[in-house]
């Protein structure tokens, strides 16, 4: 019951944030120096035609009215139309989102599956050579520009060693679309060639995306475990003779994960932002690449749609993180 209330509370808190997000994006969109209507009108449009279009899209009305109209439009799930492809932005985004999702999930999997154990080990063997080595790696992980890392990886693995593809998402006909995630679809349809190709294409971008996040997770897990390691209850559990593996694997980890989980929620934003450049470098046909394309084409609607969509996802993931935190730590619900 309390958990339900907490969930409801968190959901309710999402509303003003999302509203603020929409207003923010709206404000950004209305300070555009260039004229999107002129683009829309085509190459030989007359000023009258442009004016007519401006009127048709409501761009000649006062800003608050425009904001209201924008909100109404959003409420219908309409992010507007791409000035370039002429398709609804939502269609474009949904078409590309599975690619980004697949990439992000893969990066997240690498981050968590590698980062958490490494962080725990670093804490348990604090100040050992392993800990120092890991610290060096994580510090560099946070300092490296992901686009540069991506290029260097391409240089090594694709251009020099020719082991992995340079970019793209798959090198063979894609598997039948069930989820839109190629790896998953290939598994489900038993398409071995597609699976292999999809995995090969996934390797470098996922690792590039994961690397800085990995550093964060390792650091926070390590700090969290260290924190818990010196807590009274671990001492008490030891004094009560519980075996070390049980203490570490069960009692300690769950406590330490709270710090890590919060970070994972925040990291999602980092991954999403990282996807923009990583997808660009690796030609990964996701929403990040879409955004960069939109930048090149000055497709404002698309950029704003992407921004809004990212913000929405981010808020959503943070909500999920908080709920996860609540399941992990019952004290959260009472805060």
């Amino acid at each position, binding site marked *: 019951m309390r958990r339900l209330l907490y969930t409801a509370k968190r959901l309710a808190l999402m509303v003003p944030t999302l509203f603020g997000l929409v207003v923010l994006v709206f404000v950004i969109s209305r300070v555009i120096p260039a004229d999107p209507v002129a683009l829309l009108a085509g190459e030989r449009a007359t000023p009258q035609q442009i004016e007519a279009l401006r009127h048709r899209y409501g761009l000649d009305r006062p800003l608050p009215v425009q904001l209201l109209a924008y909100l109404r439009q959003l409420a219908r799930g309409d992010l507007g139309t791409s000035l370039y492809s002429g398709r609804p932005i939502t269609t474009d985004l949904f078409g590309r989102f599975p690619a980004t999702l697949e990439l992000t999930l893969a990066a997240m999997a690498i981050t968590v599956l590698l980062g958490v154990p490494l962080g725990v080990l670093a804490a348990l063997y604090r100040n050992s050579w392993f800990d120092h080595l890991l610290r060096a790696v994580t510090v560099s992980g946070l300092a490296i520009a992901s686009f540069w890392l991506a290029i260097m990886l391409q240089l090594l693995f694709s251009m020099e060693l020719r082991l992995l593809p340079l970019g793209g998402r798959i090198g063979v006909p894609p598997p039948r679309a069930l989820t839109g995630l190629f790896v998953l679809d290939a598994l489900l349809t038993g398409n071995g060639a597609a699976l292999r190709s999809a995995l090969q294409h996934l390797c470098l971008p996922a690792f590039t995306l994961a690397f800085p996040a990995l550093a964060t997770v390792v650091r926070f897990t390590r700090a969290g475990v260290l924190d818990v390691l010196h*807590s*009274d*209850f671990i*001492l*008490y*559990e*030891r*004094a*009560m*003779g*519980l*075996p*070390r593996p*049980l203490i570490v694997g*069960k*009692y300690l980890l*769950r*406590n330490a994960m*709270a710090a890590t989980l919060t970070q994972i929620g925040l990291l999602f934003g980092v991954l999403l932002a990282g996807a923009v450049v990583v997808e660009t470098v690796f030609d990964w046909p996701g929403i990040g690449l879409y955004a960069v394309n939109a930048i090149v084409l000055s497709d404002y609607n698309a950029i704003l749609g992407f921004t809004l969509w990212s913000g929405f996802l981010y808020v959503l993931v943070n909500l999920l993180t908080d709920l996860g935190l609540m399941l*992990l*730590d*019952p*004290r959260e619900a*009472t805060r």
Partner: protein
Amino acid sequence: MSSAPPVLEVRDLCLRFHTDQGTVEALDGVNLRVLPGEILGLVGESGCGKTATARAILGVVPAPPGEITGGRILFGGEDLLRLPERELARRIRGRAITLIPQDTLGALNPVFPLRTQLLDVLRWHPPEGDGGLWGLLRRYGRRWRRQALAQILALLRQVQLPDPEGALAKYPHEFSGGQRQRLLIAMALLPNPVLVIADEPTTALDVTIQAQILRLLRRLVKERGTSVLFITHDLGVVARLCDRVTVMYAGQEVETAPTAALFTRPAHPYTQQLLASLPDHRKEELEGIPGVVPSLIDPPRGCRFHTRCSQARPECALTRPPERLLAPGHTVRCHLY
């Protein structure tokens, strides 16, 4: 006074902590004995090494920075200091010796319900002969769980925890401090231990609650014949609860006596001045102990109290006084005797 062999005997225990500032000689030859079925009070001011002694007995001194440099801890004829960690964890800690900690909120794992924590204590400390893998697997079964829960509930009733069934599903933060202390007492008694070490268990509680807890603890351990090493700084608590008392000062024990004898005939100058410091409305002026507790990084040689002792003699600074028997069960370490 029973002449049975002691349950626990600590002999010449020495413990150091290596810190950035230097080596802290936290314990320097501590001796104490806990007799079967008795409550031994270990009393002293903050930093005198009470808790370090308890941790050394349980074998949970963090090392590094801690290092036990000498002495023996005899428990049931075995020297715990020579037992491997595995053995300690399997047979001694949480089985034969249990702990009631001071910080009730900090000591309980905040993210697991009580049931999990209680069951694990039982599960990992089975009766002798059921320690194999199969035994462990069996103890993850439903039948064992039912029996164990029944056992736990019975004990929770004994410690008078309100609504014991409901309590099992709750998390530590959902209890009051007094309730948590009852829980921890139950947890300490759960494996039916030989010795319970209670480390200032009532310090954080209000006096009315403290009185309840002390009475409960005394009744339970006396019923079961469990020995208790009760660590406190509060002489009032000692008077109310303990059968015998050992007084510590700056990492050494200075006096051991039956409780009544200690309060009526304190022998060591430190004990005397400690008692004189207690607020007492009948006295016109309070007597503090002049000076400060010496740093344990470079502690005074000989009797560590000599720097503050009004009756100190030259030899006090040279050698630590040997233990002298003043009366049956009353020993003191002072050159005056």
